[in-house]
């Protein structure tokens, strides 16, 4: 597979994952907002803003209308839903020949549907509905990708993009919930916020099946970090990354393959043998930061080994 094509597939997938995550968080946030006191809602918004943008650049005391616009439709905002979709589509367009018609048309249609949407038009009805519908379209896109694309090297680059992104997004979401507020206020997550966190990760029902409906932060952390079967746990994503790395670049020199696989193995060991009680006492933030760093390192090594390598090194 052309290195440039692998690059575009990987980023297309990362951006789709980011768009899906943003849609789900926005839908859940807008739906749950009405059940919170203004103070709790503001605290919750500030967690959402930080989890989605990576920094506290937005003023969480702004009203929900402006915040939603910024996070969903502001093309100046690199983390906005529409920006992610636009980037996903641009990447897809560059590798049209590596995608099935169905994948391209689903993605293109989704973008064309959302591109002209204005805040005023969604705010008069139920704003969450738009994000729910976008989410449904993205699930359809995922299914179409699964069923119309050969599960060859290209597909595994999509898997890599999706799960490296997912692990990092989950890490950030957990981080803002488990390490107290950065602004020094005393507004720590309450029962309702933990419930919402599960819903941000589509994890509420899978969680209750395992731990019953008793909502305990430590169990939530354990579930979202270490559950091997739930698709939105960090461990699940790490497993997918490890599997996918074994399937890409089959003809690459062994030394290069080993460099990436070694890093993936180390990450896998971190989540396979992580102990939640140690984490809870020792500080979950450090652990999450370490996971994020390892994901970034895998990304860099993946690129250096298979995509941006110097031609002189192989001639």
């Amino acid at each position, binding site marked *: 597979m*052309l290195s*440039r094509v692998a690059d575009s597939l990987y980023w297309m997938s990362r951006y789709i994952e980011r768009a899906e995550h943003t849609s789900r968080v926005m839908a859940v946030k807008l739906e749950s907002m009405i059940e919170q006191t203004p103070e709790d809602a503001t605290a919750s918004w500030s967690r959402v803003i930080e989890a989605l943008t990576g920094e506290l650049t937005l003023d969480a005391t702004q009203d929900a209308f402006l915040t939603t616009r910024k996070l969903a439709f502001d093309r100046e905002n690199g983390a906005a839903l529409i920006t992610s979709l636009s980037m996903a589509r641009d990447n897809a*367009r*560059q590798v*049209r020949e590596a995608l099935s018609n169905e994948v*391209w*048309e689903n993605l293109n249609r989704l973008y*064309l549907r959302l591109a002209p949407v204005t805040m005023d038009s969604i705010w008069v009805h139920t704003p969450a509905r738009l994000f729910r519908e976008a989410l449904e379209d993205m699930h359809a896109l995922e299914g179409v990708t699964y069923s119309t694309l050969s599960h060859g090297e290209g597909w595994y680059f999509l898997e890599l993009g999706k799960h490296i992104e997912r692990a990092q997004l989950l890490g950030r979401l957990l981080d803002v919930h488990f390490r107290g507020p950065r602004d020094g206020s005393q507004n720590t997550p309450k029962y309702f916020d933990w419930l919402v966190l599960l819903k941000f990760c589509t994890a509420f029902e899978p969680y209750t099946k395992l731990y019953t409906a008793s909502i305990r932060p430590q169990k939530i952390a354990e579930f979202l970090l270490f559950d091997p079967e739930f698709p939105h746990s960090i461990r699940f994503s790490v497993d997918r990354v490890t599997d996918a790395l074994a399937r890409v670049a089959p003809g690459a020199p062994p030394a290069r393959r080993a460099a990436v696989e070694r890093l993936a193995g180390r990450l896998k060991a971190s989540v396979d043998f992580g102990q939640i009680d140690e984490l809870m006492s020792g500080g979950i933030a450090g652990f999450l930061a370490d996971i994020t760093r390892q994901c970034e390192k895998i990304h860099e090594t993946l690129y250096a080994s298979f995509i941006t390598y110097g*031609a002189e090194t192989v001639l």
Partner: protein
Amino acid sequence: MQHEAFANTEDFGGPDIAATPPRPSRPGQDAPYLNYALGKAYDEMFAPDGTPRAPYAALDSRISTLPLEELNRRQQACEQSFLHQGITFTVYSDNQATERIIPTDLLPRIVTAAEWDRIERGLTQRILALNLFLRDIYSDGRVLKDGVVPRAMIYGSKHYRREMRGLPVPHGAYVNICGSDLIRNEKGEFVVLEDNLRVPSGVSYMLANRDVARRAFPGVFRSMNVRPIEQYPLELLATLRSLAPFHDDVSIAILTPGVFNSAYFEHAFLARQMGVELVEGRDLLVNDNVVYTRTTSGLKRIDVIYRRIDDDFIDPLIFREDSSLGVPGLFNAYRAGNVMIANALGTGVADDKAVYAYVPRLIRYYLSEEPLIENVETFLCREEKSLHHVLANLDKLVVKAVGESGGYGMLVGPHASQAEREEFGQKIKSDPDNYIAQPTIQLSTAPTFVGNGVESRHVDLRPFILHGSETKIVPGALTRVALKRGSLVVNSSQGGGSKDTWVLGQ
């Protein structure tokens, strides 16, 4: 997820056979042809007396019985299909990038079996002669020694590539992919307006138009014995393969300038349809005169490149050094015979306006045959007799500078003022070699859906010719339409659209 209107297996309309055959429509009198103008130009659908020509009878009986809303609905379904497939170009205004589809008209243009037979034989003859000509001027130059074509015209052309001299190309085939623009004159005869021998585009629109027109009129389509064109990518692949006979496992790539090129959709489309790599210049590198592409597993050798980049940009070491689209060292790999490039470099010398005028003579010279399809009558100002005729008839002629394109250095006599004509006349006299002249021609008109009815619009015809170890012309073409009423400009950059072309079987 079901989007019934767009699923590929679905038709845009319902059952598509008219209940009772109505009497033939008359333009200007019956809906939807109320504003259909029959002018001086040959009309594809209606004879001069206003009766539909026989091949259009089924289409007429269908569209004249469909309500206007239904035609509009089908037209919109066509456009939606283009939009979702990404058959678009980007228009920039007010810092806003808007994507527009390449306009498509749902009414097919019909070419009969007899008409097609002549086109096919005529274009086959033409591509043979043009390839023999290219081989000749890049080797002995017999045609120049014999005085058939002036030496200065060839060696002075900016598209003549000295680097190609003495370089053999497989099967002597310089032009492997050709798109010739034909028009139909007032007498109803097809004539060649232009040969596109460099990097002709449009074949993906031919196929995309077929896809939507067939779905818009499934019943009419089935009833008419329309010849298939879907094999085009396969024929193209076979043509490219035939250039590299040296081993079985030929690795082929399409070289594209990238996603911002207006024909990018076509490049990706053809790569997908043929199952070959789509590469950009930055994906390729040359080592020891061998071309490689950078893959995740390492470097992979490339044997044949179907390039969609102009000569000038293909190799910054030999041609334009500011080109970032090309591949340094590519030309040397080509010289060494380690990679084949289609079309060969230097083919542009044979499609400029001056050489065009010589093509009928080239056909006689190389093939000892009379041309089966004529040129548009062309006066070469370099020839004494023609020069006098041109200067005496500037008010009736279109004069073009041979080195220019895109409407520059051009005089449209009937639309110019007396002063402009006199000024241009002086230019011609001072440098007659640089000018040719042609009579103004009315392109034929074809029925085109315009929203509130069906009107006549001027069209041309671009068939696509493949030439490797053998010559193949898929029975179809891109019919380009001047969508503005009365306009003769079919270029998509200037308000042109396109429509499907139905070539009928015997």
